[in-house]
């Protein structure tokens, strides 16, 4: 019997929401790690009972938790993230060089094939890898060391590596994104990297077409077509058909092309979901209406999805890691808000209903489809 497990990271703990394939009735588990910020938790595609969670707070720093029973119980694993060699400097908000300093883990990406291998995207921006189920972590320092690292600057949320996509057809190819440095790709399992930001235009940097410095908020792909990438940038929704070598804008008729979250339909590679946010200074939906926009054409033409979502007086945000899809038929779509709601659609976005309304601010949403 199929089912889904929705993994929700919030400002004050983690929650595990479960349902059968109908996705109508939900059990709410948690809070796990009550009182801690859970930036992200995610399950292994190779072993759905293996979960990893990033647990942190300003007082006591970073921990990594691992579950081997689908989130029922957890055990702390390694939390020592040490930059490789002499870390060097990046740019700070004031434009001055600042030494790299580990702050937190934003994203955990388990390997597609090995439950014990997991990648961690951290702030200050770097990529780490563990091959022993999170016990020890090693930096893939070719990313910071490829040449542009000293020019990277933090976005408002910090210099964070927040997106990791592993190519399902070529595990040596990995895409990552950093705010506010941009997108990068490796084709040799993380040894060497190159910026992939051609076509991005960002007015907030001195050279709008610069090789790096773009505030990429999210990248998404469909696993059957990993060379096609979609990007929600600080402003602009973008698309690449050549593995990130070149990008073109596909914002089309969106009411605003600012936003954070993005997902691709699990069965239709040209169907993309975004949640437009009014602007970089007003992080809430335009007109107080919470609307997911769906394109069935790979961008360019977008339709608002509103049924079941609040259409007045709604001023929440949907953060970059807070949208995901299941792989049931029909595709389920899920997102969480800074107001603590987690909304679900069991019909690819046509209709929505809240799974839960009053969680702490939602930082991340991931979905596991269980068989």
């Amino acid at each position, binding site marked *: 019997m199929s089912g889904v497990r929705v993994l929700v990271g919030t400002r004050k703990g983690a929650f595990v929401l479960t349902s059968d394939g109908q996705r109508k009735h939900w059990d709410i588990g948690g809070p796990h790690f009550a009182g801690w910020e859970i930036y992200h938790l995610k399950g292994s595609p190779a072993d759905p009972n293996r979960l990893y969670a990033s647990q942190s707070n*300003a*007082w*006591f*720093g970073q*921990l990594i938790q691992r579950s081997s029973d689908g989130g029922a119980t957890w055990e*702390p694993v390694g939390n*020592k993230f040490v930059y490789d060699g002499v870390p060097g400097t990046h740019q700070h908000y004031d434009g001055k060089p600042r030494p790299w300093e580990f702050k937190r883990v934003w994203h955990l990406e388990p390997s597609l094939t090995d439950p014990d291998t997991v990648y961690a995207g951290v702030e200050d921006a770097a990529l780490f890898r563990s091959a022993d189920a999170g016990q020890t972590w090693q930096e893939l320092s070719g990313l910071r060391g490829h040449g542009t690292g000293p020019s990277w600057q933090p976005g408002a949320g910090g210099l964070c590596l927040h997106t990791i996509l592993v190519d399902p057809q070529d595990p040596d190819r990995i895409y990552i994104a950093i705010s506010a440095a941009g997108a990068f790709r490796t084709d040799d399992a993380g040894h060497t990297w190159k910026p992939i930001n051609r076509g991005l235009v960002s007015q907030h940097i001195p050279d709008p077409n610069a090789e790096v410095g773009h505030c990429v908020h999210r990248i998404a792909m469909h696993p059957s077509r990993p060379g096609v990438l979609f990007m929600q940038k600080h402003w602009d929704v973008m698309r690449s058909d050549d593995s990130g070598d070149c990008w073109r804008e596909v914002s089309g008729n969106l009411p605003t092309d600012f936003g954070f979250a993005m997902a691709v339909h699990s069965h239709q590679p040209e169907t993309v979901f975004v949640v437009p946010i009014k602007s970089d200074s007003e992080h809430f939906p335009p007109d107080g209406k919470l609307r997911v926009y769906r394109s069935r054409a790979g961008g360019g033409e977008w339709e608002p999805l509103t049924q079941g979502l609040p259409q007045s007086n709604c001023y929440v945000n949907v953060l970059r890691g807070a949208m995901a899809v299941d792989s049931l038929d029909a595709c389920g779509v899920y997102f969480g808000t800074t107001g603590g709601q987690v909304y679900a659609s069991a019909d690819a976005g046509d209709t929505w209903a809240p799974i839960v309304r009053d969680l702490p601010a939602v930082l991340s949403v991931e979905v596991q489809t269980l068989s």
Partner: protein
Amino acid sequence: MIRVVLPAHLRLLAKTEGEVNLDVAGLVTQRSVLDALEARCPVLRGTLRDQVTGQRRPFVRFFACELDLSHESPDDPLPGAVASGAEPFLVIGAIAGG
């Protein structure tokens, strides 16, 4: 025997209730107490001190005998009442935020 009182979050992590009692060989200092605490409860590594620099995390405070010892050298002897176990060594999460 050294008595250490942890804040609630860390007691939960360390799976301990009440005080943590430690035997510390040699001079009783912040460093020797924290080293012994982390040896007893490895999950606390990195939660009180930076794992690379060994510096106290900014929002962690150390109190004992009605004194704030946070800014003392980690190698200074702790008060005799702490060393004797008459008074606990308190780990405090600083008040921050709203």
